[in-house]
């Protein structure tokens, strides 16, 4: 008996051949979509890609579909990137779709995707680099075509919102080969000129190819380098332009850009009036608070009955005076007594007192004669008595032993 394979083994083997082929694992193919079905439940899409003579089954999983930048429809020519594998259950091969772009503009799309990824990685679209639009804009720079409907729309809306607003147009072509450099130069010129508060860069709607100037690296870099805030205003058929991504503010249309650029003057006026009223009310309140606080203070007893406070103080002063006087009197009396005692004891010790009792003091010259030996016979001496003195001469002297107390 010949050797044989199971069907599964066969499909497995074929699949291995396909998976092993580098070309079949990553390729671009062009074709027309037919029978496109997007299942809501699973989120996967199934369709056939065909040309005049051939067809191939395709699947695109939910995880890839979310990166699609357009809505695929039957009859649409697309460029598709994917890999080939066997669907074993039905024994047929199919394309597992990685990404898909509309053909025709597909090439542009690819360029755009790559440029976007590069500029993004270089930080051109970073949200923290975005400048705020000032609340009051009196001068608006506009970069667009002088003859375009976009410029008329911008003027009309700006004037509706802010009568006095001034426009400074720098004319630039907005499509064609020279447009990217002209747009970039216009943005740079306004920055060099300086005297505008905000810049609107844009044009009305057009085909994808028409809008390509707003996807150019030159315009992206000019907007990024602008010191004046930039509002992008590109009329859209596709979902974004790179100018939108780099701009400080993105408007869907020139009309919307004009609305975003200038404040509604009446609303701003109202706001300032409101601030003035609030300020006035606050000051009034503050006045009232202070005045109430003054009233409360004035209500206190000191203001209603000032004499009470005065009386209290006077009473206290009186008491203090009395205390002071009493104390002083006591001190004086005590000193007087001490003085009298001192005088009395002084009087007792006075020699004059002794003389009055009949005693005498004997002097020889300046000296007082206390002992018999203090004098010699013939010395002149003076005897002081209570009422005078006697002069005498020593005729005799004799020692006598007297007992002493």
């Amino acid at each position, binding site marked *: 008996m010949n050797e044989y394979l199971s069907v599964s083994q066969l499909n497995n083997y074929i699949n291995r051949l396909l998976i092993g082929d580098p070309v079949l694992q990553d390729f671009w193919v062009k074709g027309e979509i037919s029978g496109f079905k997007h299942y809501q439940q699973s989120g996967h899409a199934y369709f056939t890609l065909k040309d005049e003579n051939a067809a191939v089954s395709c699947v695109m999983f939910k995880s890839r579909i979310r990166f699609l930048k357009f809505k695929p429809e039957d009859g649409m020519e697309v460029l598709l990137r994917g890999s080939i594998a066997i669907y074993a259950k039905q024994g047929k091969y199919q394309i597992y779709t990685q990404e898909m772009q509309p053909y025709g503009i597909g090439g542009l799309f690819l360029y755009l995707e790559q440029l976007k990824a590069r500029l993004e990685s270089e930080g051109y679209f970073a949200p923290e680099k975005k400048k705020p639009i000032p609340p009051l804009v009196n001068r608006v720079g506009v970069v667009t075509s002088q003859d375009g409907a976009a410029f008329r729309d911008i003027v009309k809306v700006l004037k509706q919102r802010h009568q006095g607003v001034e426009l*400074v147009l720098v004319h630039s072509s907005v499509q064609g080969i020279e447009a990217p450099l002209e747009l970039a130069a216009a943005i740079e010129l306004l920055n060099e000129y300086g005297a505008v508060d905000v810049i609107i860069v844009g044009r009305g709607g057009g085909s994808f190819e028409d809008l390509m100037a707003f996807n150019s690296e030159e315009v992206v870099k000019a907007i990024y380098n602008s010191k004046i805030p930039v509002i992008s205003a590109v009329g859209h058929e596709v979902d974004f332009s790179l100018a939108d991504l780099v701009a400080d503010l993105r408007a869907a249309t020139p009309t919307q850009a004009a609305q975003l650029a200038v404040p509604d003057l009446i609303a*701003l006026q109202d706001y300032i009036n409101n601030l003035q009223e609030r300020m006035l009310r606050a*000051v009034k309140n503050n006045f009232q608070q202070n005045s109430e606080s003054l009233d409360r203070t004035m209500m206190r007893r000191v203001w209603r009955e000032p004499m009470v406070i005065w009386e209290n103080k006077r009473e206290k002063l009186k008491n203090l005076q009395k205390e002071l006087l009493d104390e002083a009197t006591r001190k004086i009396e005590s000193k007087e007594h001490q003085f009298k005692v001192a005088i009395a004891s002084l009087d007792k010790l006075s020699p004059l007192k002794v003389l009055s009792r009949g005693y005498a003091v004997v002097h020889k010259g300046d000296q007082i004669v206390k002992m018999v030996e203090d004098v010699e016979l013939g010395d002149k001496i003076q005897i002081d008595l209570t009422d005078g003195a006697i002069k005498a001469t020593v005729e005799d002297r004799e020692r006598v032993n007297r007992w002493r107390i």
Partner: protein
Amino acid sequence: MENLNFEEALKMLEEIVEKLESGGLGLEESIRLFEQGVELSLYCQQQLHQAEGRIMRLVKKLNGEFELVDLELE
């Protein structure tokens, strides 16, 4: 005050209003703030009506000078 732009003046005015509204200020302080606020709000009002509404086209001449040309739009 001449050095302020509208945005800064408006911000200062807002701060003054909030300060006044928060209360607890002395009379002198609140009068001082009020005077300053009145000045700022007048300045803001004046800025609102400052622009003259011209529509111009800016070009840079060959000699490097800027030229503003008034545009007539029907």
